[in-house]
């Protein structure tokens, strides 16, 4: 392979990005060296096993990926803003919508949500960390290695171009012989290992590490939704693992699982992909539901209405999510009976979802609703998600779907579900839990700019897509004729995407502004919240709780505050056992990344050599006898005294 084929050349847009990426890397390395921060980075972040720091790294990676995926989105909107534009050619457009989809779902939504879970869940159940802290670090670094490998495709070798669904036979070597779709198969596999480990980690954490007295039906609803999400992860991700393995074997070693030739079965890919893919939608939406529930209860000053039915609704949605995958291909020539059954199971999801919407509304009823930025996101979620939901029911009706399938109507629908359902939730969660992570609030005024620009931009961008879809425009078209009359709709939509981008810029500015200027004097419980994570300092100390709290009821912290029982007695302090930092997760993940890169280019000798790194890492990990360390009582006392006046 010549260098010319190795690097993606010839496209000025990509050339500019290559130069920009190169300069940024050099700049970053120079900056860190100049500030002498390498050691600090290694000790405090790269080798950390602290769930809060890992969570923050997840969120940071999510914001970066949001930027990347967002730029992809803007380019697509620019290209289709007028008929027959020539900003991107067909191939470039195909690559961009593919990476947009993969990045937004797997490298933006997932890390954002997992990041927030990481920060919040151990605190919310009164634990000192997750069950397997080192595995947690490994999860993050493999996710990160997968994400970086995937992003590398756009400057080295060429991006995947078969859509985020990567349908065969198109995604096979027969029709896409380049390395682009190798990147898809390999990098998703690496990131998927991390996600699967996260699922296991959170199941065990929530089952085994709850504070004394915190029984199942006293769990905060966000913890419940994280628990159920983790179960779906463990149930669904192995399917993706297998599907990607078959894909890798097909592309790299010439097997015929999904090919046209030699008896391969492309429909098998569709089934496997959506057997994972549909639960995946709920993997991202269910934690979001939990976040909204916390925020809505806090800012209505009321307990969550119908707590039990909320728990059952989440469990019901999780169960149904495994039974609906065929609705992604009603048009594949299934029998009428099959399509009818899957229409029914799909529509049934609307029932628990409807229950949740009403419970949220009734949580607010007779409350005292404060319009903080976190609450605004939760409020905007309800009407926007309702539109996404009802159009989802329309798509669920198999016969009607013959007219919506693969059209812009579908694209509008899933953006109306995923953006309010996930992105709004992530924003709400960031504003809500920011003080818990950093000890200061994000600015509420800039936050309102962020909110209004983004919500209005979102509706402007995606509402017109319903109409062009009903007018016969299919998805993933890089251009269209003027005579179609879609130009006005899509032009408007493109303007909307700029407004949305301005909203995102407001968020970035808000983060910058708040880091520099926001008041550090917000106390440990700035929102007067209800759940346990607010019972400790903000930002939370590395040991989380000096004394593990004893829980008596749902929203225990809320009632303890009322009774004035949140204090801490010096005689209760005991040394805290904490896990030590470890270098193995980051090194192992790096080895995975390198092996992955060689596999992408089918340089098998190099891949085998590099995989020795994985073996060594695993062995080193197995012989790691470090049992952690203890924080002495004096240090606990000193740290606790800094923020609470009630240490007796």
């Amino acid at each position, binding site marked *: 392979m010549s260098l010319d084929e190795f690097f993606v050349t*010839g496209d000025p847009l990509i050339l500019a990005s290559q130069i920009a990426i190169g300069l940024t890397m050099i700049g970053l390395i120079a900056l860190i060296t100049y500030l002498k921060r390498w050691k600090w980075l290694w000790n405090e972040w790269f080798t950390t096993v602290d769930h809060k720091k890992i969570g923050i790294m997840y969120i940071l990676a999510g914001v970066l990926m949001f930027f990347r995926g967002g730029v992809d989105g803007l380019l697509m909107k620019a290209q289709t803003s007028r008929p027959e534009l020539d900003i991107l050619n*067909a*191939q470039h457009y*195909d690559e961009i919508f593919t990476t947009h989809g993969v990045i937004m779902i797997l490298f933006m939504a997932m890390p954002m949500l997992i990041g927030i879970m990481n920060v919040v869940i151990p605190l919310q159940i009164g634990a000192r960390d997750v069950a397997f802290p080192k595995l947690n670090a490994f999860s993050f670094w493999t996710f990160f290695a997968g994400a970086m490998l995937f992003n590398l495709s756009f400057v080295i070798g*060429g991006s995947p171009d078969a859509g985020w669904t990567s*349908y065969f*036979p*198109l995604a096979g*070597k*027969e*029709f*896409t*012989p380049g390395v682009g779709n190798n990147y898809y198969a390999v990098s998703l596999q690496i990131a998927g290992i991390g996600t699967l480990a996260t699922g296991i980690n959170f199941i065990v954490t929530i089952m085994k590490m709850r504070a004394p007295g915190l029984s199942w039906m006293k769990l905060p609803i966000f913890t419940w939704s994280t628990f159920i999400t983790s179960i779906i992860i463990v149930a669904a991700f192995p399917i993706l693992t297998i599907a990607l393995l078959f894909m890798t074997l097909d592309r790299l070693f010439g097997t015929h699982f999904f090919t*046209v*030739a030699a008896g391969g079965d*492309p429909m098998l890919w569709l089934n496997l992909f959506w057997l994972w893919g549909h639960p995946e939608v709920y993997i991202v939406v269910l934690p979001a539901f939990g976040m909204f529930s916390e925020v809505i209860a806090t800012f209505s*000053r*009321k*307990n969550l*209405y*119908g707590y039990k*039915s909320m728990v059952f609704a989440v469990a019901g949605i999780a169960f149904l999510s495994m039974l609906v995958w065929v609705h992604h*291909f009603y*048009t594949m*020539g299934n029998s*009428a009976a099959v399509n*009818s059954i899957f229409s*029914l199971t799909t529509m049934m999801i609307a*029932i628990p979802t*409807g*229950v949740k919407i*009403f419970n949220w509304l*009734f949580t*607010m009823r*007779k409350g*005292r609703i*404060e319009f903080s930025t976190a609450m605004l996101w939760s409020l905007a979620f*309800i*009407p926007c998600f309702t539109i996404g939901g009802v159009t989802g029911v*329309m798509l669920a*009706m*198999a*016969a*009607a*779907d*013959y*007219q919506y399938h*693969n059209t812009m109507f579908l694209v509008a629908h899933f953006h109306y579900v995923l953006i309010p359902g996930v992105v709004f939730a992530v924003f709400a969660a960031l504003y809500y839990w920011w003080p818990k992570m950093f000890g200061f609030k994000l600015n509420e005024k800039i936050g*309102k700019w962020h909110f209004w620009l983004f919500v*209005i931009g979102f509706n*402007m961008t995606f509402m017109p897509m319903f*109409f062009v879809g009903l007018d*016969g425009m299919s*998805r*993933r078209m890089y*251009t*269209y004729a003027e005579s179609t009359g879609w130009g006005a*709709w899509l032009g*408007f939509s493109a303007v909307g995407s700029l*407004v949305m981008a301005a909203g995102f810029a407001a968020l970035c500015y808000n983060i910058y502004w708040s880091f520099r200027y926001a008041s550090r004097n917000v106390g440990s419980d700035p929102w007067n919240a209800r759940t346990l994570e607010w019972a400790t300092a903000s930002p939370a100390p590395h040991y989380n709780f000096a004394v593990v709290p004893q829980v008596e009821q749902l929203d225990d912290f809320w009632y303890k505050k009322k009774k004035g029982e949140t204090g801490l007695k010096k005689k209760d302090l005991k040394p805290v056992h904490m896990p030590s930092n470890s270098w193995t997760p980051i090194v192992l993940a790096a080895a995975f990344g390198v092996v992955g890169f060689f596999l992408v280019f089918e340089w098998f000798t190099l891949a085998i050599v590099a995989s020795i790194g994985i073996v060594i890492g695993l062995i080193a990990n197995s012989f790691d006898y470090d049992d952690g360390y203890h924080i002495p009582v004096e240090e606990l006392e000193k740290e606790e005294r800094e923020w609470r006046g009630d240490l007796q």
Partner: protein
Amino acid sequence: MNAMKKLIYALTLLLIPVLLAGCESKLLVFDPKGPIARSLTDLIVYSIIFMLVIVVVVFVLFGYIVWKYRARKDDGDFEPEEEKGNHLLEITWFTIPVLIVIALMIPTTKTIYEVEDVPQGYEEEEPLVIHVTSADWKWIFSYPDQDIETVNYINIPEDHPVQFKMTSAGTMQSFWVPELAGQKYTMANMQTNLYMVADQPGSYYGRNTSFNGRGYAHMEFEVQAQTREDFNKWVNDVKNTANELSEDTYSQILEPGVLGRMTFNGTHLDWIDHAHGGSEQYIDPEKYQLKHGEHDDIHQDIDEDREADSTEQDTESHEHDHEEMEHSDSETTDHSHH
């Protein structure tokens, strides 16, 4: 805050012309021109009514609650009472969606079964059979009974059932003529079926909706519904004037690229039916190799006079085909209805 409000107003105002533009003409899905598409449209309209009711109820309830229970400066920072939930209410909003699902499920199932068959009132007529073979990035239509083959357009008799037997020569595509019927996938080594009736003469827009590579956006075709007489006349004309389809021309057609319209005597079904395998002999990964940065020309030329074993193309027919292609590009759709 003021600046923000102004911005919100300005953006809302922007919406109005767009909504007006949208109302001027009927969206394709709401403009069915045959019984099958009509039953789909009826189902869609029926569901939209339910959905509008749901949206209105939720929005009104939402607006009312958010407004009525908003925190006010003069409310003395009161603390709302805790609520346990109410079984009766929770059962109510569990039952309502159940009833809605039942109300939607019954007509959905009915329609699913209905559109898989010859439409009502046409059972007596022998449907016209057309084989659809989708390839990268064109549509090939074979009329086995008439023994003719077309590329990127179909003529059908009006008010007469047509049965499509569909397959693909490679990647997966989806055959869709929104005004006449819903869509269905075309897959290699596989046959799917679709019925269609046009109840008036006219030209209808058809396209692939399942992404299959660089030429995908151009993968359109036209369905021309004609009177019985015109249709028979067209068949006769083709028989008298069109070239015979050769195996070599056919394999050139299957090469990846965007084509204009073509018409032939004879069908490829004589030597291959992609529904029953054998497509791999036409698939050449080399032809899908990407060259980044070079001008990305996906338009394709067919040289019908090419000798079976020669790979060179002569320039004359090259130009000729380009003309034909451009001509058809501008006429493949009737989408100028706006």
